[in-house]
């Protein structure tokens, strides 16, 4: 039995979607604080460009492509859910999860290579920011993949289809964070 409270909508917006937007707002300031700190340090330390030169733009670009594509499949899943096609929505979420896992695997190899070359989290404050920012983002990807699995499992049975849109919103947000991390950590050298 669900409380009546969960069924009301005084703003005219479904409560769950409202809550996801508030969640995103709270995440914007977390990543915002971290990236703002990074940017001011980066601007102050020209010397860091020596370190930044060692990041691999091609791996970063590939991961950007993976996340952009996974965002596409997430939104296609939302469309399928709106049309009531739970099976297709689950399939699209499956592709998105695949994208997330690919992203994490690529990241794991990338970090392994960098650490083997001696660029650890303590070797320089640039690398500290690099691992902290990308690591926090990777945790969000991981969390998104897990939750998406739960949503896809119920969507396959045509249950709770509105959740497909919600996990998609979160996923697009994670994608946007990477869209900014990519130039900050890889392109600006």
């Amino acid at each position, binding site marked *: 039995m669900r409380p009546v*409270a969960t069924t009301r909508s005084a703003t005219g917006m479904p*409560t769950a979607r409202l809550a996801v937007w508030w969640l995103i707002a*709270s995440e914007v300031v977390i990543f915002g604080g971290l990236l703002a700190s990074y940017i001011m340090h980066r601007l102050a330390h020209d010397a860091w460009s020596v370190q930044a030169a060692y990041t691999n733009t091609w791996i970063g670009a590939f991961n950007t492509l993976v996340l952009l594509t996974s965002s596409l499949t997430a939104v296609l899943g939302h469309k399928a859910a709106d049309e009531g096609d739970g099976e297709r929505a689950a399939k699209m979420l499956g592709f998105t999860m695949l994208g997330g896992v690919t992203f994490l695997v690529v990241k794991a190899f990338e970090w392994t290579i960098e650490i083997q070359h001696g660029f650890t989290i303590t070797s320089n404050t640039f690398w500290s920011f690099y691992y902290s920012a990308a690591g926090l983002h990777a945790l969000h990807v991981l969390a998104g993949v897990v939750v998406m699995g739960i949503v896809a499992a119920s969507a396959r049975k045509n249950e709770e289809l509105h959740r497909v849109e919600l996990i998609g919103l979160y996923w697009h947000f994670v994608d946007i964070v990477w869209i900014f991390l990519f130039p900050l950590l890889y392109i600006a050298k």
Partner: protein
Amino acid sequence: MAESAHATHGDHHEQSFFIKYLWSTDHKIIGMQYLFTGMFMALIGGFFAYAFRMQLAFPGLDIPGWGTMTPPNYNALVTNHGTIMIFWVAMPVLIAAFGNFLIPLMIGCDDMVFPRLNRLSYQVFLLSTLVLLASFFVPGGAFGGAWTAYPPLSAQATYNLTPWGAPLWLLAVALEFAAFLMGGINFITTTMNSRAPGMKMHDIPMVVWMIVLASIIFMLSVGPLFAGAIMLFFDQVLGTGFFDPARGGDPVLWQHMFWFFGHPEVYVVLLPAMGIVIDIITVFARKKFFAYKVVLYTTFAAGVASFTVWAHHQFIAGIDPRMAHIFTVTTLMISVPIAVIVFCSIATLYGGSIRFTTPMLWALAFIFEFLLGGVTGIYLGAAGADIYFHDSYFVLAHFHYTFFPIAIIGTFAAVTYWFPKMFGRHMNETLGKIHFWGTVIPFNLIFIPLFILGLAGQHRRIYNFSMYPDLAKPEFQDLRVLATVSLIVMLAFQFVFLFNFFASMIKGRKAEKNPYDANTLEWTTESPPPHGNWKELPSVYRGPYEYSVPGRADDFWPQNEPS
């Protein structure tokens, strides 16, 4: 409690104690969980204050109940007194306990919109409490680098000598933030979406508005500190150099991250207390709240302005002097909206027929004491004066003159006022008044001496003043003893409250639905409200403060009564 629950919801089967009180998704139970956890932590925080005040008044004495106070003990107690009182007392009681209990009842719905998220929020909070308490029992002891945790002291175990205590402290604070983010999303979405039919923006009781605005301010300000906590944790545990200038970091960055959150945090706890006071004052003055819309929009403005004042905590941290000018101006400006809110509360009293019940006394004491705190803040907001006052007992006394009214007086106002609704019984008024005077008078006797000591140049963070000839003068020491004795008297009077609280819960006079003739929706259901709150959820026809409306027989007009 059980009978009424069964009468209203026949489909509810018998729940075990565990399910009902510890695994419940009912907002009222979760509110109680927060309330009792907060009260427990308040006792710990109060005990800490007793222990380190004893050391200051009688240095070197074997403190009854504690033993010998070593310098690391002293640092750990001061640090955790601050941390506990703000993050584990003020926030869980004022926002989480009363937010959970009041929001669904006051906006006329049966629960929060995310009941399970609500339960998770309390569980994470409980975990954070346990982590904090555990930090006292690890090698090296609890963290002692002040509740602001400035690096490099907090960042490197070679300086703070608490290799376990410091990371655990940080972890506990971060977990607590996560719990309040979950709770905050719940409060905001519940109030936005689940209001009773007919309840428009200006029909929402002030206390609900204030809790929601506090949640929003918390959510938008805590982000950088959350990121900073991760960075500081890495500094402590992995050995990164985010806050180490020798390695390209900057310790002032932490100060900015902390106060970018820390100053809005003052308003996060102030606003709910203000809302509680406003609701109590209108009921016991039997008068419409003076200028509802003005106060509401002023509060919005104060909330935005609270993000622009943070660096006034850092005037001597070596910040850019041009920024210090800007922050002086914004700080002095923010006293205007706060003054508007306080004066509108006072204006509500004018021409009312005032009933001096215990909650009303607390509410009036809040306004009086908070004004003193606010006025002394003006000196500290101006960079020129603050450079001299900084880190003195003047700052400490000012701070306590704002936070004691908020966290303690505001809480007692709320507890005594909503006690009949929470537990279905009345508290004893005589004991309540004894407790009131026994708390408020010693409170002033604690902190007025500290104002004087601060003006005389007494520095904070000193373990033993007898080492400093200038500060060890007998007239100063007498003031310290006065403050400590007053503290002990005040703490002793809290047992009157605890007795009154628990005895009334069991044997108090039974409370009717609406003992105060109040308008807001929580008084239209049983005391205590059954599971589901109402047999039939109410609709709303007017604002919450329609008292003494001309031409009506009753001097109150409940929100749910069709005209």
